């Protein structure tokens, strides 16, 4: 995870929170959160290589498919659920969003913005777009449901998800006048605190 993005996420998570990170990768974020915020964190991941990264990092992890398991995490008293750059890889992102808000009081969601001008330019050239956030070729990508900032916020509106905080970042991981004024065009990534 990008350093600036990481700082934002860490900042939003309260001390000693019980946290679940859906799509936790090698557990790097949970490890930092445990060190800096004394959280009790669990990762959910389905990639054996990344799971071994978690075990090496000493981060508790559960090998499961997010689409299938998310509803089972409801009665676990989580304070915060994180889904960092994972939502676009899910088979049923809407279902996951409905469930994640029942898993924890607050959720931190980060997503790559498919509306970013670089990606639009790629499409205009007649090619499947790629960027720092979306580097994989179309035939290799794990992304199933890409969306733009407008799309995502529309879903939040429809489902009455309360966006408490949001930060838009450009492809250098920085917030600027441009990303804040025209996020759907200039933001490469969006970070939300939903509750």
């Amino acid at each position, binding site marked *: 995870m990008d350093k600036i993005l990481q700082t934002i996420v860490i900042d939003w998570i309260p001390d000693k929170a019980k946290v679940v990170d859906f799509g936790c990768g090698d557990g790097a974020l949970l490890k930092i959160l445990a060190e800096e915020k004394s959280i*009790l964190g669990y990762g959910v991941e389905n990639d054996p290589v990344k799971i*071994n990264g978690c*075990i*090496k990092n*000493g981060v508790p*992890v*559960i*090998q499961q498919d997010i689409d299938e398991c998310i509803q089972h995490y409801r009665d*676990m*008293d989580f304070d915060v659920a994180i889904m960092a750059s994972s939502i676009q890889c899910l088979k049923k992102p809407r279902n996951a969003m409905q469930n994640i808000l029942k898993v924890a009081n607050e959720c931190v969601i980060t997503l790559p913005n498919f509306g970013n001008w670089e990606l639009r330019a790629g499409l205009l050239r007649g090619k499947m777009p790629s960027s720092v956030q979306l580097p994989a070729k179309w035939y290799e990508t794990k992304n199933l449901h890409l969306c733009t900032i407008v799309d995502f916020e529309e879903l939040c509106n429809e489902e009455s998800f309360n966006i408490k905080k949001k930060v838009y970042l450009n492809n250098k991981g920085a917030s600027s006048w441009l990303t804040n004024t025209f996020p759907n065009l200039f933001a490469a990534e969006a970070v939300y605190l939903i509750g």
Partner: protein
Amino acid sequence: MNVVSKKILFNEPLTLGSGEMLPGFELMTETYGELNQEKSNAVLVCHAFSGNHHAAGIKEENAKPGWWDELIGDGKTIDTEKYFIVSLNNIGGCHGSTGPTSISPKTEQAFGAGFPEVSVSDWVETQKLLADHLEIDCWEMVVGGSLGGMQALQWAISYPDKIKKAAIIAASSKISTQNIALNEVAREIIKKDECFHNGDYLSHGETPSKGLKAARMLGHITYLSESNMSKRFGRKLQDPLTKMDADINYEVENYLQYKGEQFAKTFDANSYILMTKAMDSFDPAKNFDHDLVKCLKSIQAKLLIASFDSDWLFPKEYGLDIQMSAIKAGIDSTYIELNGEYGHDSFLFYSNDYSVALKNFLNSNG
């Protein structure tokens, strides 16, 4: 690898969970590697139902390597150059530790069917006495598969501050109705052997080896996966020259006959019954209002729970059940599902993912 085999005598009487008492007992042990000066590199390996203390290395010429030799050794998953590994035969067993074939000091005859009922908790108590004897205050890890995994879990519950990590492999917090049913069929087969004599076969100078063999044949099927059996034997016919029995048609029949017979030569029928009973009764949550979450709350050790996808005897739901309760209890616990070719028996064999996960877990810090 430094291998030391030792029988250790414990003179103090041991009160078992059932209330019965053993006046004293012996544990047959094997250790691998060296205990460091701080005594902080000790790993306890708990054996499964029919296992024993011989977990690694080859002791005598032509003798078989230990049951976990693929994972324990110099430079292996559980590295004997780094860790001091302790393995033992549990009481009630039949490989050197006090069990039904041992002589009762009271009657001066073999305990036989009179050997008291033992439980997973009783085993953990004896293992704790062994740790004290070896002056090991805290295990770096307690690990086991199947019934051995249950011991690892019980350790974490019984002695929260005496164990840093517990690896619970192909195990559960209690076995299913189907498991109990299968165990009962096996026990019935043994008891109905005409040589069983209500468990007092030793005083009759006989052994119920036919029953023991058939029980093992049934058990063996449950330890393998359907696909592994198909791949290994298919419907291949047995070579007539190597048939165990004239009635045999298929290779799989011959295999089970052979395995059953070998087992019956080395295992004791009363131990079989006793061990399966211990497996049936394992349910640590029963002392916590049948609430597994409550039961796990006091655990301080890190847990690694691993299931194998082809295991239908202890399917992944059992492991996940412990994991979900562990999360509710707020303890440090990881759950992984491994690819295993061999069904329940997968826990015995090396595979890269299995080895990497176990090694990373053992070597990880707090």
